């Protein structure tokens, strides 16, 4: 049905958020991905999160690379500018856009091939630079658009559709992010909306580099029962959750009493809070070593640790590090940027 243009009319009674928009105002054009694709669920979660957060869509910029995942930004937030760049290079384009205007919300959308293979270098360096963005990997373990080759996140031994086992180690993007100093690292599953939406909200609220690795099965090429990226496998092995999380918006009060020692509230830069509920055996996500341990020990048992894995409440973002002006650089008038002829006299004098 993807060839049908999406009608823009909607029911007048559709609920509106605090800034007067309906969910439909956060949608994009009709998805052209395969029916049942996990990416479409992530898209739906993004729409829901932005609607519920009352975000003005035009203050969001969507940036992606190349691949099925990178097509996805067309399918949400049609009132936001989007930039479908080149393969593996979303991080650099987002970095530049962010330097130019620090006031927008940046959602980077990438895939496992786009991030873990061709774009691994750019990914690592965007983490190191603490670019204030939400970086989402729609992770299906394979190359969809070129018909199902293994990607670098496909688990070792997990077979292709034709039954060939993957001989190579997989790259765990969450562990890498924690090691490189990402401030917010979470893993989720496209099939778990209740977990995903609060994580997206928290990632967007986070000031600094927020990484979300969302396992998103490829229904066409990597959803066979023996694949570790299939719906069935992830459902059966998802440790949802290591820790559960509530996202509390700035305007809300925390009304529920949480038992001492089992929960923690983390303040976000924009006034919102994350309330974590510690489950038995869960780790403290403010502890990077514990987070990596949780990922690795669960993985060794064949389980996938999802939820908020790591958060650093005091991260400086790229602009803090670069000491840039509070004003967006793209709004500084030329008169302030160009020193003029008088300053040039002094400069010429130094070269005489």
């Amino acid at each position: 049905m993807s060839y049908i243009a999406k009608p823009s009319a909607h029911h007048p009674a559709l609920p509106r958020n605090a800034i007067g928009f309906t969910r439909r105002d956060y949608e994009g054009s009709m998805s052209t991905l395969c029916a049942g694709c996990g990416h479409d669920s992530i898209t739906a979660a993004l729409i829901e999160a932005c609607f519920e957060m009352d975000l003005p869509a035009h203050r969001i910029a969507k940036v992606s690379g190349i691949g099925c995942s990178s097509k996805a930004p067309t399918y949400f937030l049609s009132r936001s500018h989007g930039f479908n760049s080149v393969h593996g290079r979303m991080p650099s384009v987002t970095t530049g856009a962010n330097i130019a205007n620090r006031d927008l919300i940046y959602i980077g959308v990438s895939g496992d091939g786009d991030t873990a293979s061709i774009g691994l270098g750019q990914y690592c360096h965007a983490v190191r630079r603490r670019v204030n963005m939400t970086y989402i990997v729609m992770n299906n373990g394979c190359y969809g658009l070129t018909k199902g080759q293994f990607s670098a996140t496909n688990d070792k031994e997990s077979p292709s559709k034709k039954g060939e086992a993957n001989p190579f180690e997989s790259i765990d993007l969450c562990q890498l992010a924690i090691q490189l100093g990402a401030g917010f690292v979470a893993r989720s599953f496209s099939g778990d909306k209740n977990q995903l939406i609060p994580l997206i909200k928290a990632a967007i609220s986070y000031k600094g580099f927020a990484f979300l690795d969302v396992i998103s099965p490829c229904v066409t090429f990597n959803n066979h029962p023996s694949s570790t990226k299939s719906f069935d496998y992830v459902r059966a092995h998802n440790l949802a959750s290591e820790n559960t999380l509530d996202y509390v918006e700035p305007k809300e009060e925390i009304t529920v009493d949480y038992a001492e020692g089992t929960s923690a509230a983390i303040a976000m830069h924009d006034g919102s809070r994350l309330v974590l509920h510690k489950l038995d055996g869960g780790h403290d996500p403010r502890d990077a070593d514990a987070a990596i341990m949780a990922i690795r020990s669960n993985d060794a048992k064949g389980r996938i640790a999802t939820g908020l894995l790591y958060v650093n409440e005091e991260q400086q973002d790229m602009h803090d590090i670069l000491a840039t002006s509070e004003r967006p650089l793209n709004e500084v008038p030329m008169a302030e940027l160009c020193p003029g002829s008088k300053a040039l006299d002094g400069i010429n004098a130094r070269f005489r």
Partner: protein
Amino acid sequence: MSGINDFVAKFATVNGSGSASANSIFAKTLFRMGIPVSPKNIFPSNIQGLPTWYEVRVSEAGYLARRDGIDLMVAMNPQTFKEDLAEIVPGGWLFYDSSLPRVWPRDDITVLGVPIAEMCAAKWRDPRQRQLFKNIVYVGALAALLEIDMDVLRQTIADQLKGKEKLVAANMEAIELGRAYAAKHFDCPLPIRVRAAQGAKGKIMVSGNDAAGLGAIYAGATVCAWYPITPSTSLAEAFEKYAKRLRTTKDGKRLYGIVQAEDELAAIGVAIGGGWNGARAFTATSGPGISLMSEFLGLAYFAEVPVVLFNIQRGGPSTGMPTRTQQSDVLSCAYASHGDTKHVLLFPANPTECFSMGAEAFDLAERLQTPVIVMSDLDIGMNDWVTEPFAWDDAKVHDRGKVLSAEQLENFKELKGKDWGRYQDVDGDAIPYRTLPGTHPTKGAFFTRGTSHDENARYTEDGRIHARVLDRILRKFETAASLVPKPQVTTRDKGGKTGLIYFGANTPAVHEALEALEREGVRVNALRLKAFPFTREVLDFCAAHECIFVVEQNRDCQMRSLLMTEADVPGTKLIAANSYDGMPMTAAFVRGAVLKELRPAKAAAE
């Protein structure tokens, strides 16, 4: 031909030995005496221990191209004694450290031995001082031999060592050591010597990279991303130096953001992201970086995102000669990236133009919504040139191109008679209107992509639409031809049929050669290219001349090819005059190439 204020001195030293600052003191002092000089640093791709040379041509007449034939060789590097000796013209001088005396196997030159190491060992105890001051001692000896103005020399040293006053006194002692020895032992001054002149008065001495970095500041660039690569590194560093000084607010905040990227791909990606988001953004690189940036250049071309790229060309192919100069990226830049792409190129000929064209590049990039590549090279970029001072017109308004405000988006249809679409040609100049993220709550959002798109930025696989969009972008290139800087035409032979096309760093060599040829009765009209696409004037010049020399520094005559392809000039009338040994071009080379064609008998006799 050598004499007072007209000679070439060459310093042969070991890199990492501290000679660079002594050599630049020498050149700067002559410049401050008002004498036009052109220092060329011929350095290895290495930090310490390899041979390095510094050539200084002194020319009261103002000829600042490199010139072969060394009048005075300061031979401080035993590794290269043999070749350095061979380069000296008959009747010339060889200056060396005679602490270890040696016999020089030439009887047509004068050897000037100064026991520098011995003198330094006697004067200083610290081994580092002994080493560093050797360089200053030879400058002192040259001061006597060439009759350099001591007041100017002292002031130059004082300026160079600003903030380290103690060192000034020590340096002056080293100068005096050398000067006194030379005055006592040699017949000073030599027939080649210097005297105060007027030719360099009012000028500045600066490198092109410093100038281009400053140009980006004046252009209002706020986003700079780069990856270290010789010879472009000093451009980004210059931008940072000036930005710190000129773009820091009173509360210590910066009105710029600089990223030293992980590679050239990221560097241009950052710049494109910044340009897309409405900042003036740029990167600087050299040959290998151009190769790496090609995919992104195609994206910016097709998605129509402004970005400025400074290419400080060096010797290719591959890693090639990283510390030698060439103009060998003409074609790779004109057509960078796969598919049908063409890019706007600017060709500065000196640091003054690196400044002015560097700034203008940003106006063009935003006006045309496309990458603009400033084609400098190692010779312009890293050598100090005596050049016109930088000038800025405060009345000038930066051309930010067609960017719609929220209000203009609201009223677009009333203003323009049709609905806005990102890639609609509304004005007939093939330049569409763009919008920036965050401008308007409900209007102006679109999806920027490198995949094929229609006039409203929607994905398309309709071949007719694809071709239509490509055609419009080509028409935009025609608009570009009306906006880029026009060439400089010099008519020496009105109605004459012989012409010469040149650009960039070859300019001093070409000017000198054409003047010499004119004195010999060979008059050649000339056109200096400043930009690609070629403007009307270039086409007219090519049509008006039957025999046109194309002077360039690359093997494959790339500019000649570009003229054939893009200006439809028949190859039969374009005569290649190309060098590609990595050394700045000489006037003798240009003159020889012209004579070989026009006066073959004379050329053969020479």
